[in-house]
């Protein structure tokens, strides 16, 4: 394998790129569509309105370079967004994201949460059973991993999509990537919560999960409100978002930390 020649070539612009013919097409239509088909080059985030139209050319779906724009964040940016998601006050998350929403937070926060729920769920179940029945032995239930994965991934992928389509149907301007980003970061508060739920006192667990669930739901609701701008129709959606997040919190408590 002669890898050294690959190593020295400057190839970041070639990662997953499609041949020049397609680029010329996009260049020709540049004036018309205002840079919509820019998925082949990492020139920065596309403009808001053209994100959805640019899927005419589906070849961009299979090349990595059309997704690097969603991962264009540094460590300090991610940490900043994480910290801001812990304080539900102030609905300025979407301003903070600005033109640079990232999917890194969504993917790795959900994955960490799945792992935490599976691991600490087993520990906590063991601890609670030990309190009531001294003779229980530790057993690792692998089904927790499946349940955690299905629950968390399903929630964090489907709920933003549902809201996106609903808002689009009602005529409001919505961006799926920003919704995914926001919902992903809203789950980050459950990670230390999972650790705290190890405490085998039932009443304390309920208090912890309710506090965390409320904080997370407030975060989601306030940001959604400030993004869309209040109006009567959409109040139902805010309440729905709040309730869904609370439902997730209750589900975490009931299934993994019974």
């Amino acid at each position, binding site marked *: *394998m*002669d*890898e*050294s020649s*690959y*190593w020295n070539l400057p*190839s*970041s612009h070639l*990662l997953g790129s499609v041949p020049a013919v397609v680029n010329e097409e996009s260049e020709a239509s540049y004036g018309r569509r205002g840079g919509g088909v820019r998925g082949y080059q*990492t020139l920065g985030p596309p403009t808001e309105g053209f994100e959805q139209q640019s899927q005419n050319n589906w070849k961009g779906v299979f090349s*990595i370079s059309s*997704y*690097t724009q*969603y*991962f*264009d*964040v*540094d*460590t*300090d940016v*991610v940490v900043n967004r994480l910290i801001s998601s812990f304080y539900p006050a102030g609905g300025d998350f979407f301003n903070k994201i600005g033109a640079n929403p990232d999917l*890194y937070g969504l*993917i*790795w926060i959900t*994955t*960490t949460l799945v*792992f935490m729920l599976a*691991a600490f769920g*087993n520990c906590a179940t063991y601890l609670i059973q030990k309190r009531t029945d001294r003779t229980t032995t*530790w*057993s*690792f*239930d*692998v*089904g927790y*991993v*499946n349940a955690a994965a299905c629950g968390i991934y399903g929630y964090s992928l489907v709920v933003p999509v549902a809201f996106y389509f609903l808002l689009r149907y009602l005529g409001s301007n919505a961006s799926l990537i920003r919704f995914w980003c926001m919902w992903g970061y809203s789950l980050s508060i459950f990670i230390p919560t999972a650790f705290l739920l190890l405490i085998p006192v039932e009443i304390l667990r309920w208090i912890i999960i309710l506090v965390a669930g409320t904080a997370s739901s407030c975060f989601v609701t306030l940001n959604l409100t400030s993004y869309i701008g209040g109006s009567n129709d959409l109040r139902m959606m805010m309440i729905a978002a709040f309730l869904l997040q609370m439902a997730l919190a209750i589900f975490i408590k009931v299934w993994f930390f019974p």
Partner: protein
Amino acid sequence: MSNSHSDTIPLHPSNSQSDIDEIRSLIDDSVHSGPAVVLPARHPASTPPPSSSHFISSNIPPPPPVSSSSSLQKLQSVPAAPPPPPPVGNSSSIVANGFGPPPNTLTEPVLDTVKRDLWRIVSNLKLVVFPNPFREDPGKALRDWDLWGPFFFIVFLGVALSWSASVKKSQVFAVAFALLAAGAVILTLNVLLLGGHIIFFQSLSLLGYCLFPLDVGALICMLKDNVVAKVIIVCLALAWSSWAAYPFMSSAVNPNRKALALYPVLLMYLSVGFLIIAID
């Protein structure tokens, strides 16, 4: 015969037997040296269709010095195209001499192939995992990557975990295997998406080799059953794995994003370590 191809001068008289031998050896050349050597088919009658299945089994002698007028042109093309460089990293059983094509690896004994692959796994392990003061730049390490090593390590880890599980053994194996295999792919994609420079399969290979310390830890945990000892062993194995994977991953991305690329690696090894401790 010589006048039909007037630009060549026949050196030796020919007979049909050496023609066939020559053509066979030249076609073997083209089979082994790939598209670099093009045989001009000047004399249609004497060029049999290149069905390589007939000629694979021959041991290739160097092209005989006897030439005819028609095959002279073919011979001229052979020295013009230099023999291809041998595949990198072959052990001594494949000797790349400068004259003639390298020996055919399809016809060597299976034991040779197995020994060569095992030797490659061991040498890759030494490069990647073991502390080595002469470790060359880890970004360029593992030129000779392979996927056998990672495959063995992942399967071994799955089997070890499944063995020590008391219930739901097949589900444990499935979770372990899926976690490791999908995890390696996702980690590589993560680095690529963050704008890093790595080669996909080389990274898969490297992440697989870095599982070796966890394999050793899982083996020891299978034999000893004390929880505290398990925790200590797994922590040591985890530290070793992360130490092995760290330079490669961190050199692949922009320094501002180093932590973003390393955190998922840590997460994956941590979850595997937890599985090792927890499964009993």
